[in-house]
């Protein structure tokens, strides 16, 4: 069964695991909605956005998710802190909010 996310009058396709099917559908409003519905985050702080923009930037440049270690180095956040920010972790949480497909292997 295809899942959808309703955001600002748009109907966006989601995978079975709730990841955006089309990364191009993503914007800040979609991120906030995904954060609320998938991660239970009512508010995204500057730290959240730092992680999101880091992951999104890597993805747009290389068409794949960055390694976790690279995210920690670039954001200067420990992985423990990233788990605190995104309860489902960097792959299932942060990457989902950043509008990436479900990462395989890395992140």
């Amino acid at each position, binding site marked *: 069964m295809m899942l959808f996310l309703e955001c600002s009058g748009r109907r966006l396709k989601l995978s079975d695991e709730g990841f955006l099917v089309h990364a191009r559908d993503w914007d800040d409003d979609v991120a906030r909605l995904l954060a609320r519905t998938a991660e239970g985050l009512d508010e995204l702080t500057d730290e959240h956005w730092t992680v999101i923009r880091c992951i999104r930037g890597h993805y747009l440049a290389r068409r794949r998710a960055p390694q*976790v*270690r690279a995210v*920690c180095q670039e954001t200067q956040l*420990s*992985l*423990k802190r990233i*788990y*605190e920010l995104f309860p489902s*972790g960097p792959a299932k949480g942060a990457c989902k909010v950043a509008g990436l497909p479900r990462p395989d292997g890395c992140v």
Partner: protein
Amino acid sequence: MWCDSRNPFLDLAIPSEVGMIYLDNAATSFPKPQEVYEFIDAFYRKTGVNPGRSGFDLCLAAGSLVDGTRELLCAFFGGTDPNRAVFTANATDALNLAIFGLVGRGDHVVSTRLEHNSVVRPLWTLHEDAGVDVDWVGFDSRGYVDSQEVIGRLRPNTRAVLMNHASNVLGTVQDVAPVGRACRERGVHLVLDASQTAGVVPVKMDELGADVVCFTGHKGLMGPMGIGGMYVREGVEIHQTRAGGTGVRSAERRHLTEYPFRMEYGTPNLPGIAGLHAGLTWLNHVGVAAIHAHELALWRILREGLAAIPGVTVHGQESGQGEHIGVLSFNVDRFEAADVGTLLDVDWNIACRTGLHCAPLVHESLGTDRIHGTVRLSLGPFNSPEHVEKAVSAVAEIASMRRARRAS
């Protein structure tokens, strides 16, 4: 090198380039003894010619190393004929040769739910393609298979028993000898997967009653990847499922039937064999008993430390309940194993393995298949008490972090 009872740990220099706490020795031992790296490099540079194929002196020297390694392996496994120590690419390769060469249509086989896919998948293939009937014997809550239950499953048409000497998930060493005795009495082949035990606990063919012992070179035997083998007891003739070059008697149309040629095909992995030779030599110097004592001492610290952390479940047996090796699996409450592994790697620089460990039946029995497996920590001779204490501390922090999240 081997310390006394006041400090029952090996004191081996850890190469500075490792740069991390490596607790994934059940996947491959790392680092290797310095002697192994140096010997492979020197031997392959000076003697890297095809052994047993030509008659010039260097070729004979290469062949001499191959023969010498067979002798080391034969002694290591308590064998009687070095030619029955044959080289393969790894343990999976050896087990495939043994299983497909011994078991055929209409046969019955007994195996266990502790097996690695190197046994599970060949047997499943034979079950589906050739109607081979397989009995999978379970294990108890501590991770041990009841040898009497294995014996009880033997039938008149049982061709072989395939057993893991030690579980690569739980680290429990199985009581193989009674099974071996029963197999010998009934003419059933006992094929032992010694991937996790060779080089860690004694593996002696006759004491265990094994007809075939399959091993890999890159774990406890301290060699490089890409080399493994098996020792086949005299009187056991494995049917050939491959054929090819042997370097001798090339005019014969059929592949040679005498060992080691019977089970070897094409140019051997000479640098791998050189590394295995150096690894075995190192092991004989340090001593398997010393390594086992070292790993057990570390294992106890690890097991007790992890078991004391709220929210951590350690699987399998507790200290003193039975023989085991330095392998341990656990889960952190409400954490996926992969997440714990990633945290250990990135924040604490600790290498481990997470998931099903190529042993799906173990996880189905534990129920951990539903949560994507366990975190496995596995010790080696180059680990220290400090490594283990840091791992326990890291897991404690991860577990507390999860509790803080739940409370928030």
